[in-house]
């Protein structure tokens, strides 16, 4: 890595392009969204560029707060499942043969290439009464009559976790692959079973990466809006669904912007809180 600072102003040239791109494609659109959230909506995509707080006043209602709660509930549960399943899976993966590792990583990456709409329809078919596991359960005698398992909260969680899993694995893989084999061997020589070694040594050792991965998946999942619509009942629709409705169907851009900023602010506060708690916990 080059440590020295450029000697001439010209030496800074290479960072100008990314700096400009960051400003043009991130700061400007975001700033215009913040500005938009204070405009007065005229309907039909038109708005007046006058300062008003009406959009923010409207969102502090029991309805939007309960939708926000639903969003957090879905994101929290998905992040939880993704970590609970993803962590042991990744741990097994890093200890597997090279070929097996490559195979599973390719599978995980391929999931990312799928369209959310396809995933939604696939899950709704899988959870249906007429063509999915309902039929299977009936044939196996587990249920008396085939049932449908979608739309429901469970179906939403299954679909979104399916998308979040690869992220969990890809986040944890580099960290877990750096574990020294000696650590597990040491705990084994001290008499711990593999399961005990995993829970008492490996998991606590990775407390921080687990929390960080959890938070990242949580934030990533907050944005999902298609799967809750396809796989959920209206009570499972997230704030992102409401935002897309406002923007795409009702063309109320100022209110959609205010809702987005509201969701983002609450998320940032929550992430800060978790990070802070994690730090305190690590010190204690």
């Amino acid at each position, binding site marked *: 890595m080059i440590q020295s600072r450029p000697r001439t102003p010209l030496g800074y040239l290479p960072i100008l392009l990314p700096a400009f791109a960051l400003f043009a494609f991130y700061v400007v659109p975001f700033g215009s969204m913040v500005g938009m959230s204070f405009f007065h909506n005229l*309907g*039909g995509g038109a708005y007046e560029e006058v300062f008003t707080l009406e959009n923010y006043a409207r969102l502090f209602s029991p309805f939007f707060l309960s939708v926000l709660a639903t969003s957090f509930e879905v994101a929290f549960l998905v992040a939880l499942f993704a970590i609970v399943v993803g962590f042991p899976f990744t741990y097994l993966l890093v200890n597997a043969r090279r070929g097996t590792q490559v195979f599973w990583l390719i599978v995980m990456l391929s999931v990312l290439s799928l369209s959310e709409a396809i995933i939604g*329809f696939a899950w709704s078919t899988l959870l249906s009464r*007429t*063509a999915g596991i309902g039929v299977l359960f009936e044939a196996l005698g587990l249920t008396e009559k085939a049932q*449908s398992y979608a739309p429901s909260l469970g179906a939403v969680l299954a679909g979104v976790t399916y998308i979040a899993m690869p992220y969990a694995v890809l986040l944890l893989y580099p960290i877990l692959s750096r574990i020294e084999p000696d650590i597990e061997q040491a705990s084994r020589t001290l008499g711990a079973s593999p399961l005990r070694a995993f829970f008492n040594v490996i998991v606590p050792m990775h407390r921080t990466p687990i929390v960080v991965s959890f938070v990242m998946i949580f934030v990533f999942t907050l944005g999902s809006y298609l799967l809750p619509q396809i796989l959920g009942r209206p009570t499972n629709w997230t704030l992102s669904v409401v935002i897309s*409705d406002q923007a795409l*169907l009702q063309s109320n851009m100022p209110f959609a912007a205010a809702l987005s900023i509201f969701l983002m602010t609450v998320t940032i506060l929550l992430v800060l809180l978790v990070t802070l708690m994690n730090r305190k916990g690590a010190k204690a």
Partner: protein
Amino acid sequence: MIRTSSLTRRTLLKTAGAMPLALAAPSVLRAAGDPLKVGVYGGYFQDSFDSFVYPEFTKATGIEIESIAVPTGEAWLIQLQQAARAKRAPADVSMMATVSIMRGMRTGLWATLDEAAMPNVSNILPTLQNRYENGGLAAVGAVSWYITVATNTDTFPEPIGSWAELWDPKYQDSLGLLALVSNSYLLEITAKTFFGGTEYLSSDESILEVLAKVAELKPNTRLWYRDEAQFEQALKSGEIPIGQYYHDVTGLAAADGFPVRSNFPKEGGLRESGNWAVAGVSDKIDQAQVFIDYMSQPSVQAMLARNLGTAPNVARESMDLTDEEFAAVSSEIEPVVPRYDLHFERTDWLNQIWAEMLQA
């Protein structure tokens, strides 16, 4: 407004043969250079127009058409409005949902059309002619379609005679309904079914009363769908055996051998329309008027009914549709007509109370 691309017929490629045309295009139009840009909803709908409507029109009038896929929802209206500010017209003629037409009228987006230049427009039902406050014509009904009660006949062999049956407890957790106040029109349907008509939706109190009646459908509703395909698939398989759906698409599925039926309830199907409007900044208003005039002929409306499955916007008697052909796309029962005025004026409020009812 979610309505997209499901208007199609397998008979698409058979193409309606030559149509009788009493239309003589002035040679000046024939000579015009650029094609007339016409926007309709993308997908099958646009394919249908491309395959047999536009070629016949060009043959009859000499006016070339450039076909444009128009995005659904309000997106196209916003694009047109922004383009108009820059004095551009991404399309000369667009097919728009009625509420979008009204929104465009408020900003004077649409050209005032010259009725004297379009004698055939008088065939179009007066309710489907959208006028500015000064009486000027802003948009003309293009095609209509019905939302009816669709059933899976394997599960429910008997026809459904009334919208009121949707409230029957025996259908618990088995309905599919459109999810939005602006595309399900369940307020209108409920008002006509239980409160004497859509006029009942005249005050906030009565709207909330009707909304409470709609809320009684929640235990019966399995799926509140936004995407047509989602319900269609579930209906065909019997996963969700009953619900509101588009008459024409249900008919198509039935003709393809799926066990489905479209039932026209005694209160009438919900009738919705797309409208032709011309961008005010267009420099092809004359050609656009020739196009709208052409599309308003009873013979063309009948041809659309046969080939696209759309409900005609002209009087039944003026067309040569057989009873069977007419029944395939429409009904003599007085339809439930959306309260477009309400959806236009109270958009935010209606959507808010609707969402609160649904997501509570």
